[in-house]
């Protein structure tokens, strides 16, 4: 459904921003090249203008979506405004067919980068890091996190249709992450 030119495969499989740029620079230019570069620059630039380096703005927005999922309803107005901003920043409203294909893979790449952190020692630990989580616990927590920052927040804020594309990318990436993710994701959806 979101098939793209195979020359981009290595670019979308790589999660390290510097290596991605090297791959991107080595690719022959085509019509999509300008858009892919634009997205790259957008994703790894400091939108707050604080001069910070090594930013992954899209990954940060994923985390923000998860935080928004955990918020109570009394700040609904601010939450909805922020969701709109995030949707615009992540280009969820882009209707161009070729752009959407590339965005789908960029979203999956963002999700993959998040999931790459979910195997670390501290992740999902309890009691101030004294009790380390088992591998299975980490995978289950990762499922919950990814669900919250995609389908969960969309459902909670009534944006399921507007964020459909984003949800699909995150779900597909999660299904490839571990065998138990499919069942866990379905369970979370039903709950």
């Amino acid at each position, binding site marked *: 459904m979101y098939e793209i030119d195979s020359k981009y495969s290595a670019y979308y499989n790589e999660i390290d921003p510097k290596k991605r740029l090297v791959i991107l620079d080595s690719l022959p230019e085509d019509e999509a090249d300008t858009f892919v570069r634009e997205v790259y620059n957008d994703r790894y630039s400091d939108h707050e203008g604080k001069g910070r380096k090594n930013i992954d703005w899209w*990954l940060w927005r994923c*985390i923000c979506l998860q*935080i928004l999922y955990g918020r109570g309803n009394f700040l609904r107005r601010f939450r909805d405004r922020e969701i709109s901003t995030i949707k615009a920043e992540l280009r969820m409203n882009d209707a161009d067919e070729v752009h959407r294909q590339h965005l789908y893979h960029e979203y999956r790449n963002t999700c993959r980068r998040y999931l790459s*952190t979910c195997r670390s020692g*501290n992740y999902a630990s309890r009691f101030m890091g004294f009790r380390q989580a088992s591998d299975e616990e980490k995978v*289950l927590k990762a499922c919950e996190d990814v669900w919250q920052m995609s389908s969960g927040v969309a459902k909670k804020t009534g944006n399921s249709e507007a964020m459909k594309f984003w949800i699909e990318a995150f779900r597909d990436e999660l299904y490839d992450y571990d065998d138990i993710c499919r069942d866990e994701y379905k369970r979370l959806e039903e709950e």
Partner: protein
Amino acid sequence: MNENKFAAAFKQNAIWLVFIIEIAIFAYFNPKFLGLANIVNISRQVSYYGIASIGMTFVILIAGIDLSIGSIIALVNVVCAYLMMNMGWNMWLAILISIAMAILIGVLNGWMVASIGIPAIIATFASQTIFRGCAYLLSGGLPIPGVVLEHPTFGFFARWSLNRWGIPGDFGLIPICAIIMVICFAVGSFILNKSYFGRYFYAIGGNEEASELSGIRVNKMKYLIYALSGFFAGLAGIVLLSRSGSAQSTAAIGFEFEVITCVVLGGVSVAGGIGRMSGVIAGVLIIGSLKSGMIMMNVSEYTQMVVQGLVLAVAVGIDCFSKKRQSN
């Protein structure tokens, strides 16, 4: 869907229901519990718990802990009183120096946790011992009395109240310390809900490595959070000194556990990344009312300790149980 929303809203605010039930039980057994004098007394009593719990909330949100706040309070008590009484310093300067010292202790905790990599529980336990010892050394183990007698203005922080015209003084309805607590909670709530720093706290508590990759300077934030914890503990120390009127190096022993109880009872997860300031306010009010209610029902001090320990165990137990149920 509506049922789910109702259930979620109920779950989020269940702590307030617990508070109401608790009030109803104490009021049933002792009608004076809801009297104005007791309410004013509770608000005075919970003020320094409330102020200190804000810093602790930030620390627990990043999956850390600060066991040094009781010692910070004792040291702030002793240093502030020492500067005013033994060295004749100006009251405001003494307060500023004491709070700056509390912030520096917080920075030291942040340095041990973030830069050296010592687990928070060990690092802050070491600080607890070091600074309690410093308080004993400075005071020689003896109290420094007469702070409010010699500096009546110092009573402003805990002894003064606002009268019906809003003028502060010795007699009035709304204690100044309760107003300070409300302002601190408003600031804490603003930081958590409306500022980027609040986001960073949740993000670091939820997934530290992802936060680092997304561009947050995690170590710098840890310094800031422990410094904030030190600041709020320092402020709580000033309020306590104003209330007691004399500095004691033995002040606030075990205080950190009561504050942790308030925070965890308020729904802040010991795993980090989850919690709201409104829940912490409820937790503080529950513990304050519980203490006051037990005193009014003539429950012995030892029994009160047992009850408070049980409340902490139940609060952490519920948090762990809900996590375990999720993972099952």
